[in-house]
C-alpha cells in the first residue's frame, strides 16, 4: 500500500511564509539602499558634467541666527559660479575646479582660498551611513525622488531631492548631529544643457587677487611636521567612523603664521584639527575673552586667578580650576597645562573648540557633540 503524501497544515507553513517574506524584504531593502547610494554618487558626478543655469534660495544657521540669500547659478565643465544676493548685499563665488574665489564687487577684489581635493571614499560613507529612498515630489517644476541619509539608528543627516531625469540635486537639507536642520538649498528655476560662457568663471581683469593660503596640498602627518617645522600632535581618540583624510599647511593672519591642519572624515562629515606654535602676542590670549567677562582682568596670575565671568559651560568655574580637575600635561596630553579653559563655539552646523596649550594654539572644528569634541582635544598627543 502506497504511503499517503502528508500535506502540511496552513499553520505549520506560517513560519516558512514569515521567513520568506523577511528574506524578500531584506533583499528589497538592501537593493533599495544600494540604489539610493548609487543615486547619491551619481548626483555628484552629473553636477560636474552638466551645463546648468538656474536660480536658488539658500539658508544656513550661523550661530543662533538663520541667514538666507538667493543666488543665480551657472555651471559648466566642472566649474560653478554663484551670484548671491541677500538684501542689498551682493557677492559672487567661483569654483574653478582648483580654488574657491570670492568676488567682492564693492572692493573690486577677489579672495582665493584652497579647495582641497577630498578623496571621496564611498565605501567609508556607506559603512558609516545608511541611505534610503523615501518618496517622490516636485521641485522647480520637475519630478524628483527623495533620498535620506543618516547614521544607523541616528537622526537624519541629509535629505536630498534628486531630479528623476538627470539625477541632479535640486534641493538639499542638512542636519547636524543633534538632528537640527542647519542649512537648506532649493532651486526655484533650472535649465539643463544651456551654453554657459567660460568667462563667467574668470576673475575680472582689473581686479586684485588675494591668494594667501597656498594650494591646499595634502600631506602625510610626517611630511606635514616637516612642512610646518614642528611635531604635529595627533589625537589618540577619534569619534566612531572617522579616519585621517590628510594634512594641510595653512598660512594665516598678517604675519603669515604657519598652522598644521589635520582633516578627518567619516565619509560625509569632516573634522578639522588646526594647530600652530604660539607666537608673539599669544601669551595675552590664553583662554577667556574680553567680551565674556573681562579676560584682561582675569589674568591675575600665571595660572589665571581672575574670575571668568559671563557664559560658562559645565565645569567653568574660576580660571585655574582646571588643574585641580585633573588638568596638566599628565592627564590631558596637550590639554590646558596652565589650567586654562577651553572655549566651545556653537556655530550651528558645526562646533569649534579652541584652547591654548603651553606651546600651541589649537582649534578643532567639526559637527560633533561637545563632549566628543572635548574628548578629541584632550587626547591630542
Amino acid at each position, binding site marked *: 500500500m502506497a504511503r499517503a503524501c502528508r500535506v502540511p497544515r496552513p499553520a505549520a507553513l506560517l513560519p516558512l511564509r514569515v521567513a520568506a517574506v523577511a528574506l524578500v524584504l531584506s533583499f528589497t531593502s538592501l537593493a533599495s539602499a544600494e540604489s539610493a547610494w548609487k543615486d*547619491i*554618487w551619481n548626483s*555628484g558626478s552629473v553636477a560636474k558634467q552638466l551645463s546648468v543655469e538656474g536660480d*536658488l534660495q*539658500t*539658508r544656513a544657521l550661523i*550661530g543662533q541666527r538663520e541667514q*538666507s540669500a538667493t543666488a543665480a547659478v551657472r555651471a559648466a565643465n566642472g566649474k560653478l559660479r554663484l551670484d*548671491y544676493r*541677500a538684501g542689498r548685499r551682493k*557677492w559672487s*563665488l567661483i569654483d574653478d575646479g582648483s580654488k574657491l574665489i*570670492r568676488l*567682492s564687487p564693492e572692493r573690486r577684489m577677489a579672495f582665493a*582660498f*584652497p*579647495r*582641497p581635493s*577630498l578623496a571621496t571614499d564611498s565605501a567609508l560613507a556607506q559603512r558609516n551611513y545608511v541611505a534610503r529612498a523615501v518618496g517622490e515630489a516636485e521641485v522647480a517644476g520637475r519630478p524628483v525622488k527623495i533620498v535620506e*541619509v543618516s547614521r544607523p539608528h541616528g537622526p537624519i543627516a*541629509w535629505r*536630498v531631492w534628486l531630479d528623476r531625469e538627470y539625477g541632479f540635486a535640486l534641493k*538639499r537639507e*542638512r542636519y547636524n548631529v543633534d538632528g537640527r536642520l542647519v*542649512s*537648506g*538649498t532649493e532651486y526655484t528655476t533650472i535649465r539643463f544643457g544651456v551654453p554657459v560662457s567660460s568667462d563667467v568663471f574668470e576673475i575680472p581683469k582689473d581686479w586684485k587677487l588675494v591668494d594667501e593660503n597656498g594650494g*591646499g596640498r595634502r600631506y602625510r602627518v610626517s611630511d606635514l611636521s616637516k612642512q610646518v617645522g614642528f611635531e604635529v600632535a595627533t589625537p589618540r581618540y577619534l569619534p566612531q567612523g572617522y579616519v585621517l583624510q590628510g594634512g*594641510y599647511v595653512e598660512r594665516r593672519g598678517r604675519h603669515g603664521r604657519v598652522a598644521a591642519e589635520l*582633516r578627518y*572624515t567619516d565619509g*560625509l562629515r*569632516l573634522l*578639522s584639527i*588646526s594647530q*600652530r606654535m604660539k607666537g608673539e602676542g599669544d601669551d595675552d590670549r590664553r583662554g577667556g*575673552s574680553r*567680551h*565674556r567677562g573681562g579676560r584682561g582682568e582675569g589674568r591675575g596670575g600665571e595660572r589665571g586667578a581672575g574670575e*571668568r565671568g559671563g557664559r560658562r*559651560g559645565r*565645569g*567653568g568655574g574660576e580660571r585655574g*580650576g*582646571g588643574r585641580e*580637575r*585633573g*588638568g596638566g600635561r599628565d592627564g*590631558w596630553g596637550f590639554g590646558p597645562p596652565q589650567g586654562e*579653559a*577651553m*572655549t*566651545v563655539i556653537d*556655530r550651528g552646523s558645526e562646533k*569649534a573648540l*579652541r584652547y591654548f596649550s603651553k606651546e600651541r594654539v589649537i*582649534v578643532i*572644528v567639526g559637527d560633533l557633540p561637545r563632549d566628543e569634541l*572635548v*574628548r578629541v582635544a584632550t587626547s591630542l598627543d
Partner: protein
Amino acid sequence: MPECDRIRKQLSYYAVGGVRGGAHARVERHLASCAACRAELTALERTGAIVTSVGPVPAPPGTWEAIRDQILDRPRQAVPRPARRFWRVAIGVAALLIFALAVAFVRPFRAPQPPIAVAVELEADDTDTPATIESHLSAQWSAPLADEAAVGLRLSELGGS
C-alpha cells in the same frame, strides 16, 4: 501465639533488668503460665553468662594502625562543608560590591573634564578659529553631499579672508 511473640521481643531486655513497671508485671505473669517462653528466657540468660565470662580481649597488634591508615588514605569527599560555601559566597558578593563601587566612583574621574566656556559668536581678537572654520568649510565644499550654495553663504559670513 501473638502473646508469646510480644513477650519474647522484650525477653532480652527483661533478662538484663531493662523492663520495668507494668511491662515487667505482664512479662512475669506470662512466664508463670508459658513453659516455652521460660525456656527461651533460660537460653538467653545462659548466653549472657557465657559472654560475661569471656571478658575483654585485646586486639591483635597493628589493628588500630591499619584502621587509621585506611582512614587517612581515603580520598576526601567533594561535598563542600557549609562553612566553606558561606565564605565563597561572601567573597563573591564582596568582589561584586568592590567592582560596582569602582565603576560608580572611579569612572567619572578617569577622564577629567576641563573647564569649558560656551559661546555662539566668534571673538573679535580671535583669528585662529575663523581661519580654521574657513578652511573646514572650503574642504566641505568638495565633500560628498555638499550644499555648495549654503557653504558659500556661510563662507561669506566669515568675511572671505
